[in-house]
């Protein structure tokens, strides 16, 4: 199990690094609720807005 964990850590951290350097970033960390029209933590719109 230790070997699997070691592998998961290496692959996981490498994936985070790869994603970070290949993705654009607006800077400040945000959550979907920060965007206009969001009515839930995932950014779903309000039923009344449909």
């Amino acid at each position: 199990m230790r070997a699997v964990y070691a592998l998961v850590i290496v692959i996981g951290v490498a994936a985070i690094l790869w994603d970070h350097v290949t993705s654009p970033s607006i800077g400040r960390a945000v959550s979907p609720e920060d965007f206009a029209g969001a009515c839930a933590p995932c950014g779903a719109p309000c039923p009344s807005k449909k």
Partner: protein
Amino acid sequence: MTTATTTIEPTATRADWPFVAAAVLATALLIALVLIDGQPASAALLVLGFGLGVAFLKAEFSFTASWRRFIVRGEAGGMMAILLLIALTAVAVVPVAATSPHYGGAIAPLGISLVVGSFVFGIGMQLANGCGSGTLYTVGGGSGRMLFALAFFIAGSVLGSMSLGTFLRFGGIDPVLASDHLGPWGGLAATLASIGVAALIVRAVARSRGASIVPRRSFLVGAVIIAALMVGTFFAGGHPWSVTFGYTVWGAKIAQAFGLDLSQYDFWQWPGPQHALTDSVLGDTSSLTDFGMIFGAMAAAAYTKPFAHGPWPPARSILAACIGGLLMGWGARLGFGCNIGAFVGGVASGSLHGWVWFVCALAGCAAGIRLRPWFGLSRE
């Protein structure tokens, strides 16, 4: 003459230094990356997540086991500690979210999606033996079984993101937020009163079954520390702590890397998810605390004993973890979060959806407990 001698063994911790070092270095690396981008708030979220991982692991703060003990035996100690955690968090979240434009509560609409999602999440909780936060800290703590649960949680949440739009078309009611109707302090009073009523109901159920209502000391201390860290997360991220949106983003990025086009689904057309899918994963508040929590739990676990040294569990138990993870992932997307984002965050924000989520998820847990023996898991 012989003399009896007593050898006193030094109380040494059997630290597993390679894994302690890996957890600390990985966290330090992520902190360095966000600081290079000039984002101290992101660094704070990583540190707070690390602290949450340590706190959850050391206190063994388990929503899943607490709910199961309450349903099966009527024991209410864990539930009481959870309600204390929510009340302490609400004291900061409700008035600040209601008065400052820079902060917001965890709100969500009421409807079929919330009811179905939270019920299914409850079933998954008991099969996987961990919820959103529980999965994070047990994965970090070295549970091979929960590695499967996490992988399927991630997959399930992507499937949930594909289903959410369909369920929302059934309609619903806009979020009901106490502070919108009663102002910041009236909203806080109503929120604390609702938590008090819940505590009275929980106590009455425990009393009627002759069970304890007193939390373990470690659970009580854990609740206070976790509440402080949740308040810190709220101030650093602008919203109450959430866990499962990060899983959805990770899964979607992986799916996209394998050529799956998600843009046709409503969920991925909304501005927030769309942005999260294209932006760095370190630009998502949920992912930052998730990473910190995994590494925090790993450091804490590896510091006290050899890390991940146990044998793999039986195949049936792993199957339960996979099914449970899948159900939790799907349910979390439809139910607008997990125990943390929907229940703790929702109730601590004064949002009615938090209580609806709790009641439905508790019913789902009762169903899930009945299914546990099928997978060789104890109902207790």
